[in-house]
């Protein structure tokens, strides 16, 4: 069991590319922590630097209060699950799971016994004699997990653990992975580009962009109060509405309408208004403090629909319940729920505190 602490951690490639740019971060003991970001944001490099597969070019990294910045990967007491699982194709499932113990020079009967126990816990008992090529994607993933679990490391590192599974399997694997992590209580960092995955599984999420962390917080914080427009854009299955506005007479004046403004903003301040489509209510009749336009495209999301309202200031997304779906071409009003309007500084893109 161990906390992981990054202090000004830096990884610059010989070409001058800064993949990890002076990150400081503390991941608590037993925490399930997600590194989330678009491809190329440095999240995988950060994970590989923590594993020791990449050398940090600056800063320190400690796992369980032990400085491991300069240690070889094998001495860091971490286990990593790779995106392609990296199961050894010539070994049986049993030998694959037992491999970390073989490196630790544990005698064959003992390591097979432990591998079998771990495999049983992950529903692999029937598959022990097979080779990886004879397994389905989900089974391969469980073998890779078993191989990580059997080593009893102080931390797990998962690189896109679910991305090679098909969509339906991914959902059950998500639940499975979260339960496994809960039961073992081992500090876990996982990398993903899928915001839904991060929101569903993680205790805390770090949203990364270009080698820097843009926000660290619980899924609720990151979803409900994104710290800047980048996070606001990235998180959420439907993108957040970000609309330019100017403060006039204590009101936010948008192209599509006007909303009440908080008192502390001076007249003439230019802001970006951020409202999630899920936090907007649709009204077919005129209401005050609303954005107005005509109903454009309606996309079905299952129990709800995403209505795109064509306004003077561009499209605004509104999520409506499936029964209240408006007809295309009708006029519509979108009313933000109280406390759900976020204001961002137009220059810096940062959240303006209430």
């Amino acid at each position, binding site marked *: 069991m161990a906390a992981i602490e990054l202090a000004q951690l830096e990884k610059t490639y010989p070409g001058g590319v800064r993949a990890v740019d002076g990150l400081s971060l503390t991941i608590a003991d037993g925490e399930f922590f997600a590194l989330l970001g678009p491809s190329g944001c440095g999240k995988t490099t950060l994970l590989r630097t923590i*594993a*020791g*597969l990449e050398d940090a070019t600056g800063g320190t990294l400690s796992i369980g209060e032990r400085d491991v910045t300069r240690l*070889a*990967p*094998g*001495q*860091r007491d*971490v*286990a*990593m699950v*790779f*995106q*392609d699982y*990296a199961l*050894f*194709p*010539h*070994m049986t499932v049993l030998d694959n799971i037992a*491999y*970390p113990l*073989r*490196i*630790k020079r544990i005698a064959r009967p003992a390591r097979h016994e432990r591998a079998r126990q771990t495999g049983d816990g992950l529903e692999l008992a029937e598959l022990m004699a097979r*080779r*990886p*090529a*004879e397994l389905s994607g989900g089974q391969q993933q469980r073998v890779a997990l078993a191989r990580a679990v059997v*080593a009893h490391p102080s931390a797990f*590192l998962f690189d896109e653990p679910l991305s090679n599974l098909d969509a339906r399997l991914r959902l059950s694997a998500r639940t499975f992975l979260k339960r496994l992590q809960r039961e073992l209580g081992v500090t876990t960092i996982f990398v993903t580009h899928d915001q839904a995955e991060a929101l569903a599984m993680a205790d805390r999420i770090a949203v990364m962009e270009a080698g820097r962390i843009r926000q660290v917080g619980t899924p609720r914080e990151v979803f409900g109060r994104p710290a800047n427009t980048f996070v606001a854009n990235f998180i959420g299955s439907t993108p957040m509405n970000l609309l330019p506005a100017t403060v006039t007479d204590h009101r936010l004046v948008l192209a599509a309408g006007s909303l009440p403004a908080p008192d502390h903003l001076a007249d003439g301040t230019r802001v970006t208004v951020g409202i999630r489509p899920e936090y907007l209510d649709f009204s077919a009749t005129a209401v005050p403090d609303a954005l107005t336009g005509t109903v454009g495209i309606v996309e079905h999301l299952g129990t709800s629909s995403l209505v795109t309202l064509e306004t003077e200031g561009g499209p605004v997304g509104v999520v409506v319940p499936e029964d209240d779906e408006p007809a295309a071409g009708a006029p519509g009003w979108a009313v933000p729920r109280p406390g759900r309007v976020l204001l961002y500084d137009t220059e810096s893109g940062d959240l303006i505190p209430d």
Partner: protein
Amino acid sequence: MRRILGDAVVRHVLSRLLLYLFAGLVLVFFALPLLWLVLTPFARTPSFRIPAPSFTLHNFRILLDNPFALRSIGNSLILAGGTALLAVVFAGTAAYALSRVRLPGRDALLYAILLLSSIVTGTAAMVPIFLMLFQLHLIDNRLALILVLTGGLLPSAMFILKDFMDTVPKSYEESARVFGASPLQILRHVVAPVVRPGLATIAVWAVVQVWGNFLLPYILLQQQTKQPAAVIMYTFYDEGGQPNFALISTFSLLYSVPVVAAYLLVNRRYGFRFQGGIKG
């Protein structure tokens, strides 16, 4: 109309006939020596001709009585086995390094080695190699010969094996590294088993190369007790230059068996492939 059609049929039949005739001739050309190889050892009066059907083991008696024949097969096995082993180990480690370490001009280096190798082990280098081993007092030394033979095979072997190594996903090795495996353990536990078909290919290829090599052992080994089969076969002529057919035919059969066996064994276990050491 019908005549044109008839002409086409005749032409078609004729061209087929010519093709079969040609194929038949080629077949006979290649089959006759093989037939000789299989039949003559058991013939009562072995000669250059394909023997009339007869059966005797007398020729093998003559072979067993020859002091050098069987021993030379043993020598050939030592040379071929030793060279195959060294070639696989050296070429394997070198190819692994070349595949994983980013060197400037790596490909140019590989091609240069490959190109030079044909010169180094060719006939042109015989005299310098002989002189070098002579100065080092390594004439008549089997290990020295194995090293020279290995050196000749290494460039091509490295070239082929590097292709195999390139197909091993890096994540296999990284995964082993995170579990604490040393580079040598990674090579032994992960990389070598995955590229096994490639290693087997190189081993059999090395055996075949050494088995048929005449010039190098002829020059570098002078005691008849150490010479391999390819060289000893040359001594099966009497003083008048007449070949001893009883010896040559039986010996030829014996000489060809190990190579065919090695090929069949390896082909069965691994199958010969020149790329893709990964299943699934």
